[in-house]
């Protein structure tokens, strides 16, 4: 609260306290890290995208060959569609669930604390472990589909052969993604919901607002910035999701779950065409950056408007 007040004050009075702006030096470590770990490799990858290289010998300059051939690559175009679908489904499933759970978990009762602690367990597990566990659980011959055949034995769920059809394979990825990531976003929403001043609810209660009304008129608007943060994280995260696809579906059946990042892996480490893989890498950087910018712009996150102005 204090920090917010100070920042708010600084915005209005330019002359007063000179608390703010640390010198440029302070950003040096972060900047150094960014240059060494992001910009330099990015530069190398851009250069590699104009070469042909199979990890043996030296890369050979081929000009824009990789670029032109990939723009005619049907699988690459398809992979962007797959990525968009997985991202959209990720946002649609993870956001409502984690929002509701987060708001629920924000309460201070002991049972909520215990249940949410249990619920956060997937956060501690590696994506690889989670994917391997679900792969076994969803095996058609000795996993859940066999035990719960009354639930799985219909064409909607591929008669239990979940990894054999496009729809069900995408469903599995979405479900496992939700299982894995909802706890993380719940945590964000829990923090956001706990920061909402109690007085707002007290005032609303006096005015006769019920629980549902309070949720829609106070909680949701107050969580606006939290929602944007969470959605941006899901967006960028889904675009670069790779491990769960590698383990659960390996981009199959056919190429129907081959996302752009997985296709980059296939090009680099299965076909050993690092030039093509680099083109896809560069495309991914451009697309994720653009999308983040658009979201930030459209949502007004950049306007630095606090949801608590006037409270």
């Amino acid at each position, binding site marked *: 609260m204090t920090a917010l007040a100070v920042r708010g004050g600084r915005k209005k009075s330019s002359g007063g306290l000179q608390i703010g702006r640390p010198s440029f030096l302070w950003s040096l470590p972060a900047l150094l890290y960014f240059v060494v770990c*992001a910009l330099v490799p990015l530069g190398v990858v851009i250069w590699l995208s104009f070469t042909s290289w199979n990890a043996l010998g030296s890369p050979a300059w081929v000009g824009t060959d990789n670029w032109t051939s990939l723009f005619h690559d049907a699988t690459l175009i398809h992979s962007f569609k797959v990525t968009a679908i997985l991202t959209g489904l990720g946002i649609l499933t993870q956001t409502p669930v984690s929002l509701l759970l987060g708001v629920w978990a924000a309460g201070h009762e002991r049972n909520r604390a215990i249940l949410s602690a249990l619920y956060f367990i997937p956060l501690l597990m590696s994506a690889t472990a989670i994917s391997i566990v679900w792969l076994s659980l969803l095996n058609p011959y000795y996993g859940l589909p066999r035990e719960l055949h009354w639930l799985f034995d219909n064409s909607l769920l591929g008669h239990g*052969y979940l990894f054999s059809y496009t729809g069900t394979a995408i469903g599995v990825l979405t479900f496992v993604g939700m299982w894995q990531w909802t706890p993380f976003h719940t945590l964000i929403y829990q923090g956001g919901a706990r920061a909402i001043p109690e007085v707002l609810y007290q005032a609303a209660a006096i005015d006769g607002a019920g629980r549902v009304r309070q949720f829609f008129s106070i909680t949701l608007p107050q969580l606006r910035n939290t929602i944007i943060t969470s959605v941006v994280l899901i967006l*960028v995260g889904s675009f670069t999701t790779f491990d769960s696809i590698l383990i659960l579906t390996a981009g199959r059946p056919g190429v129907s779950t081959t996302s752009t990042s997985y296709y980059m892996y296939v090009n680099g480490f299965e*076909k050993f065409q690092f030039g093509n893989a680099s083109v896809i890498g560069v495309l*991914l950087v451009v697309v994720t950056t653009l999308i983040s910018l658009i979201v930030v712009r459209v949502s007004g996150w950049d306007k630095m408007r606090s949801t608590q102005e006037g409270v």
Partner: protein
Amino acid sequence: MSVSRHWSRRTVVAATLALTTAAALVAFGAASSSATTKASSARPANKIVVLAYGDAQNKAEQWAVDTYNKTPQGKKVKAVLQTIPGANYQTKLQTIIGSSNAPDVFFNWGGGSIVQFQKAGLLLPLNGFMKADPKLKSSFLPSILSAAKIGSNYYGIPMRGTQPVMLFYNKTLLAAHHLTPPTTWAQLLSDVAALKNAGVQVPIALGGADQWPTLMWFEYAYDRVAGPSLVTDALNGKSSVWKTPDSTKALGYLKQLIDAGAFGPSKSWDSVYFTKNQTAQMLIGGQAAFELMGSWYYSTVQSQSASFAAKELGYSAFPSIPGGKGNLNDLAGNTENYYSVLKNTRYPQAVAAFLKVMYSPAFVKQELALGNLTTTTNTPKLISGPTAPYLRYQFNLIKKAQAFQLSWDQAWPQTNSNAIHTAVADYFDNPDSNAFASAMAALKPAG
């Protein structure tokens, strides 16, 4: 003014976030520096690095390194064993072999798995070692040595065992339905039909999600119908063989089996892995009766149920196809694993001394105890212990075999694996012989 400044700062933060994530992701592509051949003097002193595929069998490799280190040569130049676990072996090897971290001696599958390294001038021909120590050549079966021969030069010394693909079955399940393991294609189809009628959901387990187990069916069908020459021709760049009547015929036999529901309902195999022990569980649990798999299947089943492996696991050769040009005794699989040597190793004499261990009887015994059928000429004399019947059966298979087809995904250069796997998986999902022929014709052989 201040708004626009804030806009840009915020934007930069967001952009930075996105960029860091994405850039970190692509960074691995650039992780290894440009791979120029380093001079041998730049390599570590008094040390040779031995690189192996990391798994339960490393016990024997460690034993070999320890044994070498006790020899006079080993006391001067020490050998160090490094391993890369699991399926990423070939990938990581390719990433380091051009760098200064390249191993002096490394595990491989011969054939297409080393041809690119040879072409890049990274491998040491072993003919010189063999001249100095004739036993390095005469101790191994010639057909096995020649699978790691490129041109007139030998590039690999066998170091594990040969891995033929066999048709495994659940003895109890077959006996319960009064069936015997098939020796002909017609019998295989009738076994499948009988099992289906008896309510066995999946007569033949297939780890289609891994794709390479599907490939084994093609290797045998093509060999039985067309004989080994078709694939040899294809490997020599004659892509038209995939459109010949023999090719279409072999594919037709596979379609028969798929349509008969031998592998379960269409596409069901795409949800099943061999590598996660799923198919082994199906065989053990009696949900499936057969599985076509490499000789390592014995240890896979053993790891799931030792008693099943000992008492109920049966094995037989792939059935014959009447009228086909292939021999019933022909085999497919992984010929062997080999040690190849880096050309600019700093201590070739130490490497030669290390390779001598590979044919010593004590080392062969280490391998046999792990269930690996070594390919030294003295192997039959040394077989003993609980795995002896299984090892003897394989040894006879190999002795009788007139041709041993190296797995296609290892016979072709590594860059084609993905295309081969996709082609076979697509054919099983949607048996279209033209599409398969075109996909195979598009492969790039080494030449």
